[in-house]
C-alpha cells in the first residue's frame, strides 16, 4: 500500500517534470507567461490601494490582511493549475471520448488524467502568492502555514474541479456548469467574505468551497486556531474522497468516441 502510494507520487512528480519541460520548449514564451502573470496579479494592488483610500478597513480587514487573502487565492490557484491543470479541463475529455489513452495505463486513472498537463502561467500565480506573504506578513510560522494552506487549498480546488467536471458524465452541457462553478472560487476568493450577506457566506462554505480555500486559512493565519486548522484538513480529505468517488462512478457511464489521438 505504502509502496504503491510512493510509486504514484513519483509518477505525479515525473509527470509534472515532463509537463514543465514541454511548456519550456519555447523558453521566451514560458518566461513571458510567468512574469506577466505576476504583473497581471500585481495590478490588483492598485485596486485595493484605491478602495482602502476610500475606507480604512474593508469587511473588518486592513490592507495587508486583504493582501494575504489575495496571496492565498493566487497561490492555491497556482498550485492546483501547475499540478492538476487537466482537472479543470475534464469536460471536453469526457464529452469527446478522449479518456481512452488514460484507461489503459497501469496507474490511478484520475491522477493520470488530472496531472497530464500544466498551466505555465500558474507558476506566476504561485510566485506572486509567496511574494505577497513575504512582503506583507513574513514570519517562519506564517510561511509554513501559508505553504500548508496553498497545498490544501490547491487540493480542494482540484477536487472541486473534478466533481464539477464529472457532471459531464451525466450532463451534455456540463462543461459550462463546471466552468462557471470553478469561476466562483476565483471571483469570490479575492474579496473578503465579510462584505457578503450571511446567506451568501453560507453558500461559499458549502456549495462552493471558497471558504475552505481562502477565507478560513486567512482567519487561521491572522489568529491561529488548531480546531479550525483540523477542520480545513478534514474538509480537504472529504472533498478529495468525494471527487474520487464521483469520477469513478461517472466513469462507468463513459463511452469512447473511437477517436484516434496521440499523447505527445
Amino acid at each position: 500500500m505504502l509502496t504503491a502510494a510512493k510509486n504514484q507520487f513519483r509518477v505525479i512528480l515525473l509527470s509534472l517534470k515532463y509537463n514543465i519541460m514541454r511548456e519550456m520548449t519555447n523558453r521566451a514564451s514560458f518566461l513571458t507567461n510567468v512574469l506577466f502573470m505576476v504583473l497581471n496579479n500585481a495590478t490588483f494592488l492598485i485596486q485595493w490601494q484605491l478602495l482602502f483610500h476610500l475606507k480604512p478597513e474593508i469587511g473588518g480587514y486592513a490592507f495587508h490582511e486583504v493582501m494575504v487573502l489575495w496571496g492565498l487565492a493566487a497561490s492555491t490557484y497556482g498550485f492546483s493549475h501547475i499540478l492538476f491543470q487537466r482537472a479543470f479541463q475534464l469536460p471536453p475529455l469526457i464529452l469527446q471520448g478522449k479518456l481512452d489513452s488514460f484507461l489503459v495505463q497501469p496507474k490511478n486513472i484520475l491522477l493520470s488524467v488530472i496531472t497530464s498537463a500544466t498551466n505555465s502561467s500558474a507558476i506566476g500565480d504561485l510566485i506572486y502568492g509567496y511574494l505577497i506573504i513575504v512582503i506583507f506578513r513574513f514570519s517562519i510560522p506564517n510561511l509554513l502555514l501559508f505553504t500548508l494552506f496553498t497545498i490544501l487549498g490547491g487540493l480542494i480546488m482540484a477536487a472541486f474541479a473534478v466533481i464539477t467536471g464529472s457532471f459531464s458524465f451525466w450532463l451534455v452541457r456540463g462543461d459550462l456548469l463546471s466552468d462557471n462553478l470553478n469561476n466562483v472560487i476565483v471571483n469570490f476568493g479575492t474579496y473578503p467574505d465579510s462584505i457578503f450577506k450571511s446567506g451568501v457566506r453560507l453558500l461559499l462554505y458549502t456549495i462552493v468551497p471558497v471558504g475552505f480555500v481562502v477565507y478560513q486559512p486567512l482567519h487561521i493565519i491572522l489568529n491561529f486556531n488548531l480546531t479550525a486548522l483540523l477542520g480545513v484538513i478534514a474538509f480537504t480529505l472529504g472533498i478529495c474522497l468525494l471527487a474520487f468517488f464521483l469520477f469513478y462512478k461517472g466513469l462507468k457511464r463513459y463511452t469512447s468516441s473511437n477517436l484516434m489521438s496521440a499523447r505527445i
Partner: protein
Amino acid sequence: MRKYLFILKATLMENLQYVWNILLGFITFFMLLFVFMNLWDYIYSDSGNLISGYTKDQMIWYVILTEMIWFSCRNATLSYQISNDIKSGSIAYSINKPYNYIAYIIAKHLGEIAIKSLLFLVAGLIIGYGFLGSLPPVHLYQLPAILVTLVLGTFINTFLKMSISVLSFWIEDATPFHWIYDKMIIVLGIMFPVEVFPLWAQPVIRATPIFVVTYGPAKLIIDYSSGMAVRVILSQLIYFVISLSFLLFIYQRGVKKLNVNGG
C-alpha cells in the same frame, strides 16, 4: 463593403443558434456584478452620500454599465483567433482570399458580439433595476451621443485588441499582453470612475483607453452633459484614427515577416 456586411450577417445568424450558450456565459457576468455591488454597498454603508461626487446609485450603475460594455466587447476572435492563425500558419489561407484579413476579422467580431451586446444590455438593466429600483436618468435627446460613444468605444477596443494579437508575428504568444490590457480595463476602468483616482493620476487615466472604452460612455449615461459628450467623442475620434492606423501599420509590417513552410 457588401462582402463584409455579408460576413457580419452570416456570423450573426450563426450566433443566433447558440443563444443558450451565451446565456450560460452570463453566470460569470452576474457573479462579478454581485461581488462589485456588494463591495460598493459596503463602502457606502457608513460614508456620506457622495464618494468623489458620485452617489451610491450612480456608482453602482457605473459598475453595471462598464461591466456591460466590457463583457459585450470580449471575444475570443480578437484575443485568440488572430494569434492562432499566425502561430499555426493558417493565416496564409486567409490573406490570399478576396477580402482584407483585418476587415474580415472586424466584421466577424461585430457579428459575434451583436446578439451578446443586446443580451448584456437587457441583463444589466434588469439587474440594476432589481438592485436599485430605478434606471439611469437618460433623456431621449441624449441617446444619439451615447450610442455614438458606445459604438466608437467598441471599435477602439477592437482595434487595440487586434493590434495586441498581431504582435504574434514577432512574439509567438501574445496572450500575456492581452492579460495586461484586460486587467488595466477591468481593475482601473470598470470598478472606478476617473474621479476616484488621486488628482495626479487622473490626467494619466484620461489619456488611456479606459477613458474612451468604458468611462466615457458610462459617465454619459449616469451623468450626461453636452460638454462631456463633446470631449468623449473628440477623444474617441482621435483614438479611433490612431489605433486603426497603428493596427494597419503593424499588420503590414507583420505580414512581410510571414514565412510559411509546407502545405
